[in-house]
């Protein structure tokens, strides 16, 4: 070893460390919140990285989003998109003028006939906005004046895996960052004690096998992996590995972290790599999460009124109702992107009985969440989105009777509702034909929907980009337009 060299390194290091220790700590912490800041603070990275426009591009109308994803694709025909004329068409062939030879899934493309299956459920108009809702969703019906129904959403995918991947990442093929990862990358987290992107999953009550979810739906694709969603779980640790091992208490952990910090500080003196300090900060945040997360999931401070509103199921961890309540608590704590998935909506057969079960799982809690946010003044800056990956066909898959039918996948139109966060309340946007088969007015493509969501969060979807493989990627690829008409 060259002693002169070593001395030089140590000297400058001590000056640097002594002078800037607190600064580096802050930078390291900032890196957890916004890696681009850390990049700048560390004086490193690619110059272009600092040129990426990060942070809100303009004043946001929503600070956070709660996405109530109904996985498996709920039937728009039986919930919101009322088509009274279809009664006359019961069991008649879907007219070719409507189908227009458009592609079908290979599950029904071989069917000899495509008999029209009108909904078995009653619809009524509700609220001042006179929105149509079927009697499957009485609670949702009671809040229609806070909702904006988009009946003309359409997608490109015709099957679940590509469909849900498209909704959540803007591409049918795995490999792209999820919407939550994009927003976390673009805006960072607000809360230093919780991740900025949290995922909650519940299982549906319907009889059919549930469609799969995929960790890519909250993954980061080519974005740095710290932007990925953190799954909160209904059983075991709410966050993986959150609990200390058996026999280890918080004080012991504190002592260990202190020892680790001291040893890491020595290592920093020796090596000078700022990543070391970032690691200390990460350990500290982990320590804080060990209390912030249990506080969050401990519902003992919720009054009975909460459970009256969300339903008693909200006491059962892992249910949709419990996840909705958790979503409100996360919103209160400033978590940026709260992604719920409720599984079990894939009703190819026995739709009437299964959809009733699914609505029983979700209707009350979804409505409660919106009301609760509103009551607490959170709805105005929280965007709530409800929807699945595509719609379902007017024609019956399999046998049709007055009371029983199934519906196949239908990408050409489906209904999504949004609420709060800068969205016009009490309106319906877009229109489908009498068969709820094609959009006849104001189509909203998935890219348009995603562009609009980003817009509410203050992000220009054309400027939220990340360079990879030689081009600037975005959530909306090279498409998308903000649906201005639904903005408040």
């Amino acid at each position: 070893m060259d002693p002169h060299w070593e001395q030089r390194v140590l000297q400058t290091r001590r000056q640097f460390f002594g002078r800037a220790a607190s600064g580096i700590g802050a930078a390291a912490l900032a890196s957890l919140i916004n890696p681009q800041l850390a990049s700048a603070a560390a004086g490193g990275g690619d110059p272009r990285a600092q040129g990426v426009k990060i942070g809100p591009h303009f004043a946001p109308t929503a600070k956070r989003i709660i996405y109530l994803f109904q996985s498996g694709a709920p039937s728009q025909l039986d919930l919101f998109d009322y088509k009274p004329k279809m009664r006359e068409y019961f069991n008649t062939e879907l007219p070719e003028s409507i189908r227009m030879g458009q592609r079908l899934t290979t599950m029904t493309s071989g069917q000899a006939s495509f008999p029209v299956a009108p909904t078995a459920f009653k619809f009524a108009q509700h609220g001042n906005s006179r929105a149509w809702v079927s009697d499957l969703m009485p609670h949702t019906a009671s809040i229609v004046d806070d909702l904006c129904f988009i009946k003309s959403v359409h997608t490109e995918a015709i099957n679940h895996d590509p469909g849900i991947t498209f909704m959540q990442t803007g591409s049918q093929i795995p490999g792209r960052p999820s919407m939550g990862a994009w927003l976390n990358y673009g805006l960072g987290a607000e809360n230093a004690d919780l991740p900025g992107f949290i995922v909650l999953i519940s299982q549906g009550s319907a009889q059919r096998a549930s469609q799969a979810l995929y960790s890519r739906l909250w993954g980061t694709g080519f974005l740095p992996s710290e932007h990925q969603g953190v799954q909160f779980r209904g059983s075991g640790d709410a966050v993986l590995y959150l609990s200390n091992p058996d026999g280890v208490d918080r004080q012991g952990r504190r002592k260990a972290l202190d020892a680790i910090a001291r040893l890491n500080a020595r290592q920093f003196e020796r090596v000078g790599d700022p990543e070391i300090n970032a690691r200390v900060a990460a350990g500290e945040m982990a320590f804080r999460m060990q209390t912030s997360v249990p506080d969050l999931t401990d519902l003992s401070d919720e009054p009975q009124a909460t459970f009256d509103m969300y339903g008693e199921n909200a006491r059962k961890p892992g249910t949709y109702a419990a996840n909705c309540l958790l979503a409100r608590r996360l919103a209160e704590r400033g978590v940026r992107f709260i992604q719920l998935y409720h599984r079990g909506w894939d009703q190819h057969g026995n739709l009437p009985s299964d959809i009733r079960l699914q609505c029983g799982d979700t209707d009350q809690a979804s409505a409660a969440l919106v009301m609760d946010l509103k009551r607490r003044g959170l709805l105005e800056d929280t965007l709530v989105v409800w929807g699945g990956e595509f719609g379902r066909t007017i024609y019956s898959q399999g046998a049709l009777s007055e009371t029983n039918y199934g519906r196949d996948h239908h990408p050409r139109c489906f209904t999504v509702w949004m609420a709060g966060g800068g969205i016009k309340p009490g309106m319906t946007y877009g229109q489908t034909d009498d068969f709820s088969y094609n959009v006849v007015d104001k189509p909203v493509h998935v890219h348009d929907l995603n562009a609009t969501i980003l817009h509410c969060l203050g992000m220009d979807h054309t400027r939220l980009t990340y360079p990879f493989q030689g081009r600037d990627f975005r959530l909306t690829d090279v498409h998308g337009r903000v649906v201005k008409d639904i903005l408040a």
Partner: protein
Amino acid sequence: MVTPRRMRGRCALACLAATASVVAVFSGGFGAAPPSIAPDANAAPRFNRDVRPILSNHCYQCHGPDSAARKAGLRLDRRDDALAALESGVHAIVPGDADASAILARVTHTDPGQVMPPPEIGKDLSDEQIDTLRRWIESGAEYEPHWSFVPPVRPQAPDISAANSEWRTNPIDRFIHATLESEGLEPSPRASAETLLRRASFDLTGLPPTPEQLDQLRADASPEAFARAVDRLLASPRYGEHMARRWLDAARYGDTHGLHLDNAREMWPWRDWVIEAFNANMPFDRFTVEQLAGDLLPEPTLDQLVATGFNRNHVSTNEGGVILDEVRMNNVADRIATTGTVWLGLTLACAHCHDHKFDPILHDEYFELFAFFNNTTENPMDGNRTDWAPFVRVPSDEQKAELESMDERIGSIKSELDGPSAEIDAQQAAWRSQAAAEWTNGWQVTEVATATASGGTTLRTLDDNSVLAEGDNPDRNTYQIITRTDATDLSLLRLEALTHDSLPHKGAGRADNSNFVLSELELEARPAGDDSAEWTPIRLVAAAADHQQMNGPYPVAATIDGIVGAANGWAVDGMTRREDRVAVYAAAEPFGFDGGTELRTTLRFETHFPRHAIGRVRLAVSGDEALRESVLPVGLGTWHAAGPFPAADRNAAFIEPFGPELALADTRAVDTTATYADNIAWVAHPEWTDGAPHDLEGGLAATYLTRTIHAGSARTLTLSLGSDDGIKVWCNGRLVHENNVARAVAPDQDSITIDLDPGENHLLIKIANYGGGFAFYFSTDESAGSDALRMLPLILARELTEEQQTTLRRYFRSTRSPYMRDLAAELDTITAERNAFQAMLPLTLVMEENEERRPTHRLHRGDYASPREEVSPGIPEALPQMADDLPRDRLGFARWLVSPEHPLTARVTVNRLWQQMFGTGIVKTAEDFGSQGEWPSHPELLDWLAVEFVESGWDVKHMLRLMANSQAYQQRAAVTPELLSRDPANRLLARGPRFRLAAEEIRDQALLASGLLVGTIGGPSVKPTQPKGLWFDVGYTDSNTANFTPDEGDDLYRRSMYSYWKRTSPPPNMAAFDAPTREACTVRRSRTNTPMQALVLLNDPQFVEASRVLAQRVLRAESQTDAQLAMAFRLLTSRSPDNAEIDVLHELYEAELARYEDNTFDALALLAVGAAPRDESLDPAAHAAMTSVANAILTLDEAVNK
């Protein structure tokens, strides 16, 4: 009406293949030169380094190779076009005259409507970039071909002025040092031996050095000591595993399909091939050819076929409803994207929908590449199967030997059973003609008097006294046939259903599919010649047939059961067997009148199968007693059951003998009065009917069933069995069947034939339950009659196929000789065993070429549904072309990739090796060497390495050795703040590489340090513990990977590269440290630093267990606390702690010790984490305290860095 556009804009699908993934953190950049290597502000800019990045990133999108997107006719990527006069008459670029160049006027324009690039695309040029363009135009606006498309030429290693002569020997160092000199920087001193060994051990084997290896290196003062250590590491089998682990990312290897159901897939033999290839240092050109086209090599070996699994690793789907053409396109596109990234460093996927925006890859050229990979035989949908064909079975050497020995035995039995033997064959011929005579001569065909049918059918009598149905064929029908005979003392009626050319498919039935179903047969007799005599019903008590349909209630016995039900009748598989059929009926009493008898036979066709009548019928009678005996049914006794006998586990339930099975050794009979352990006794079940499943009681257990079977003569009986779960069957004390299987009960899951002795026979069945349902199913074909009757079609037929001859020969030989009979039984057993054995052999998916090339079309805008002109396999024009003698298939393509003059393959590959050793590639964008890729930090060095690689014979170990032995690699990693700000990413290498370990390395280190690591190489992937419910949360309910069950024992402690990779839910502790999902090709992982990582290291039971076992190790090895602490520290950081560090550790230890001494309960709780046994001789408090300290050390930055 507005119809939503299915395809949106130009890039509907594409840009889809965001495949090769992942960028180092905080990076994001491309296109610009690496920091700190800024061009000299006064020198003329160089096109490739300085100008192309600006034009490419800011201008090519509208003025580049993509003709469809080109604006104003301006093309800037080719000099001739850029200098030409534009439509407007101006010149974009006038060499030497910046002011006359329109491009400069536009980029400096102040009007937002005029300035270029248009502000809305967000690609504004900086002043510095504009200045670069100006100076470049002033200097003559020279273009250079894109550097990576020009074949590398070995440059002279520069002379350097290094004071330290060590930097002069390795050419790598001369290139690095020369750059440092020009930057005014000095290299760092050499790192300590310990640091170097840790660095090289992780970089070459993925594991830390052991204390012994550290001591050895420290003790060796010779200058070659480190080089020898490098050689040792390169020779270690751990090297191959480590290299393979990186290759698995690139090859997107996973243990599941990745899409929709995400079911299990078996590919690990391919993974093991990769390990072996790296360990054997297979030259990279061969490594390439075998993986891309091993199947097309002349007479490929099994290994070469296995290698082709590379391009079967992509994600796949079997989602109901998907469209085949779309899935096939996606699969091939993935192969193109992956191959492009891994070998060419090109983003080929960009050209899927349109001409590449930045690189000279045209849309139609993309599909010429596509055509190479679009000619394989696999179904685009994976069938949700493990064995998605084509695949090969890959037996181990032992398994191969086992298979061969079984084949040998099968061969020798077959030659005995089937081989020619003049004597036996003559006997067989004699027997056959005798048997035929019995069925012809022993019978008297009755003469038809009248034959009538209902519903417009007429029955015409033919010369052979058969009647043929003609005319209408009503849904239901009844034939009444009156015949005459002179014979008396009759006991048997024979019904023949004969084929006829006039019948459907020339079969015997009248149904469209040529089947028939006879519901009921009634026989009456009266004396001949007296039309007024009463008809006397003849009671028929048994029926047998040469064949009856087994897939439902279709036994011939159903025709005399008095029931005419919807599906109750005799059916004969007429849709597949267009043969004559025979049924024989036995009467209760002899019948027939002296002086002649008239018989009235009524055939009813009244099941719910419409028009299923017999087409041609002939009747005969006989009084042969021996025949009658063979027709009479066996007598089935009442079922008795004993159980459940509880079992420890699934295997025990099946394998372990309980009460009745133990007693079998002594007797062929089953004693139903016996009582077994725990007072289990036989219980009679008269309520159990055959042909329906019956539930049993009990959990993980075995239950036995028995019944007697009475046979009038020696005969066989075929049983249809079902079970939930495993089943074993004994007949007369001899094991005749076993099937260790987990399943729900159903009819006919196992079909076996047993031999019955005359008189009483004993059947014993064991049902083993593995949890859940517990049930069995039993039925027989007992009414089908004897073997001889079943052989009748073969006995009577004039010409037999080879297969039929074998059947008949085996039947004859086994009925004539007990030896042959045993042999035939052994053949059945061993064949079944062999098939079962074969089916469980490891398999791996492979590539297979269609014999006739599948046409490839250019897909307009990349849409699978818009095929345009057909294209042939070919290479983009911008790249060197294939030699004429190369075949235009995958093999030719692979050979082209590794042709020595190829500009990309060697560069891209050595760059990844450099990235492995130095943390960042010479080209940082390891996946993109195109014009948007980053300019190399050391272009000449990259070329030198590429040429060296090719000329060394594509020797991977040689290249890694060169890098490890460089001074550049061996520098200290410590950095001054000045250098940090000057070169934060260490691209200039004025210091040694230091970066966080990969996910697998972190876990493997913990396992090795604790002594838990199990070093077995290869084999099926393993499932170490993970938090409960992760798979279930996301999995499709019916997926066979919806539930995670951890493995046990050694499989918990294998190297992490063997962990089971479910792509929709990869191991969470790996994902936390940036392991990719393996859904797409990844050649660069990110290296993040997150709270989740801290939680994993501190709380994941895997790491806590490793800490506990590590604590145990040091407590046993050393007696002094400080020595124990030092050892733990050294095991995880490869260095001994100094006193200050010991003090910190000691303080923590003492505090923890005090706490655990006060609280043994907590100590024991901590020590119970994980499955590894605890040394109970150690003081729990000390062990727990040391566990805490070990866990803290494991979490140190130094422990997770190399």
